[in-house]
């Protein structure tokens, strides 16, 4: 294993310190927890947004802390949900009295830990609501699984619910918008090489030299199938078909698109993918309101990408276009 780290046990702590050192005017770390918060928190008169999860998906979620998006991000160990006490510290640090919305990605551990933190906060009479993001169409959404995973689409929930909170909306209002984004967003990914969890020191899975896995999760969870590597256009078409089968879009409707690199995929290749995404949507008469190409929800050093499509209405469009200024996501 080749990694530029000091100690596998210190990766999260070292990273958080480095992030704060890079953005001291925007974010700070809580002394007693692995939590990044807005420097001006708690923001008076505003519902606070808290998200988080296992580390290894940078810039998620600490990179999205700032005006117009999150108030706090809780960083667990690599690919491991943060514990309830950490989430609870985040809630306490950012609540202005107007309530807190927890944005949780749909993983068994994340849900349990965040819900326990909610129970703890409610005992202190802090008003807390939760939403669960499950945008990954690679997982069959049945009662016999833990359900669809939360992946890159989560960034759109941060952006849009964050913008709603900035308007001074109530906790109910912010939660309603977050739920609307969740029901309108779909993603699917693929991988051509594995990631290595620092403490484990070996790849999570192995793929043959010419092999790819379609539908791979952001922790290397199994996707729908493995096959021989195809062209960017063919892969993109397959992912887009799966996404568009799952969300009803008719000609004339508007969407936002995110082409997300998992970390080791060059921007050149992400743009090649985006070219095809654009062609597919254009052909169907679907208008692209905004496109985001880059690294938003990574998976350590995994190579691969995901595509996210968010169906917009006038409310979501306005909130997506509202200003945001965070270390990793800016809308001016």
């Amino acid at each position, binding site marked *: 294993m080749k990694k530029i780290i000091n100690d596998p046990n210190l990766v999260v702590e070292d990273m958080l310190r480095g992030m704060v050192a890079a953005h001291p005017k925007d974010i700070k770390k809580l002394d007693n927890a692995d939590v990044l918060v807005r420097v001006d928190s708690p923001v008076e008169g505003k519902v606070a947004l808290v998200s988080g999860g296992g580390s290894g998906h940078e810039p998620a979620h600490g990179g999205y802390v700032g005006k117009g998006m999150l108030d706090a991000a809780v960083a667990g*160990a690599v690919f*491991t949900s943060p514990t*309830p006490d950490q989430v609870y510290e985040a809630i306490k640090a950012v609540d202005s009295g107007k309530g807190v919305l927890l944005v949780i990605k749909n993983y068994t*551990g994340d849900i349990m*830990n965040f819900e*326990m933190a909610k129970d703890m906060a409610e005992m202190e009479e802090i008003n807390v609501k939760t939403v669960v993001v499950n945008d990954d169409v690679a*997982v069959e959404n049945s009662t016999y699984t833990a359900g669809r995973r939360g992946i890159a689409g989560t960034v759109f929930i941060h952006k849009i619910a964050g913008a709603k909170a900035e308007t001074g909306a109530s906790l109910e209002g912010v939660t309603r918008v977050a739920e609307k984004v969740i029901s309108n967003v779909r993603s699917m990914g693929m991988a051509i090489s594995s990631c290595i969890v620092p403490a484990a020191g070996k790849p999570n899975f192995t793929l043959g030299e010419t092999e790819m896995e379609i539908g791979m999760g952001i*922790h290397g969870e199994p996707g729908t199938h493995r096959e021989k590597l195809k062209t960017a256009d063919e892969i993109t078409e397959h992912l887009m078909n799966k996404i568009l089968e799952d969300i009803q879009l008719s000609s004339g409707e508007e969407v936002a698109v995110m082409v997300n690199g998992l970390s080791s995929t060059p921007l050149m290749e992400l743009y090649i993918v985006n070219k095809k995404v654009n062609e597919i949507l254009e052909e169907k008469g679907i208008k692209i309101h905004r496109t985001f190409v880059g690294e938003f929800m990574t998976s350590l050093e995994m190579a691969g990408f995901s595509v996210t499509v968010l169906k917009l209405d006038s409310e979501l469009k306005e909130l997506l276009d509202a200003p945001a200024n965070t270390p990793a996501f800016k809308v001016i």
Partner: protein
Amino acid sequence: MSIQGKKVIQVLVKISEKIDENKAYLSELDAAIGDGDHGLNLNKGFKAVIEKIKEDDGSDIGGILKKAGMALVSNVGGASGPLYGTAFMKAAMSVNGKSEIDMSDFSKMLEDALEGIKMRGKGQANDKTMIDAIEPASNSIKHGIAQGLEAKEVLKLAKEAAYKGVEHTKEIIARKGRASYLGERSLGHQDAGATSSAIIIETIYEALN
């Protein structure tokens, strides 16, 4: 059989040692169908439990178990932290303020722990989880007490029921947690959570023997 608070602390120390001995085995089971950190995370959690309770005077068994639950919740992470943490905290509530407990108290503790796990994880038997080891053990204890068996025999049967439940997890498809994404590919694999639960129940049997 009457169990004093000091004995409860000794049992927890034994559990911590047993988890340490089995940490690689548990992580290996987890790696096949999960993310491979169950043994390491649980070991870290029980080490924290021992730190929290080693100075305890043993006068309140509920208090000891509550401290253990809190330590597990804030140190294990993932799914097993909240599940084992909730289990210990629910067990604590049923023996609050007691300085000694008997078999019927233990039976109630395990039953409440099981209910806590089901509530927290929204799971049930046959989901291929720790419930598949704990539920048969809990039922076996209730049955043994009703039959008027000796405490030692009751615990031995409970341990056997737990391991039978672990074996059963090989034959069923995971419906909860990360393993559930595998669907039928989870067949044939033994659940790591059920295994750690059976190890804990076995250790209780051995320590009280």
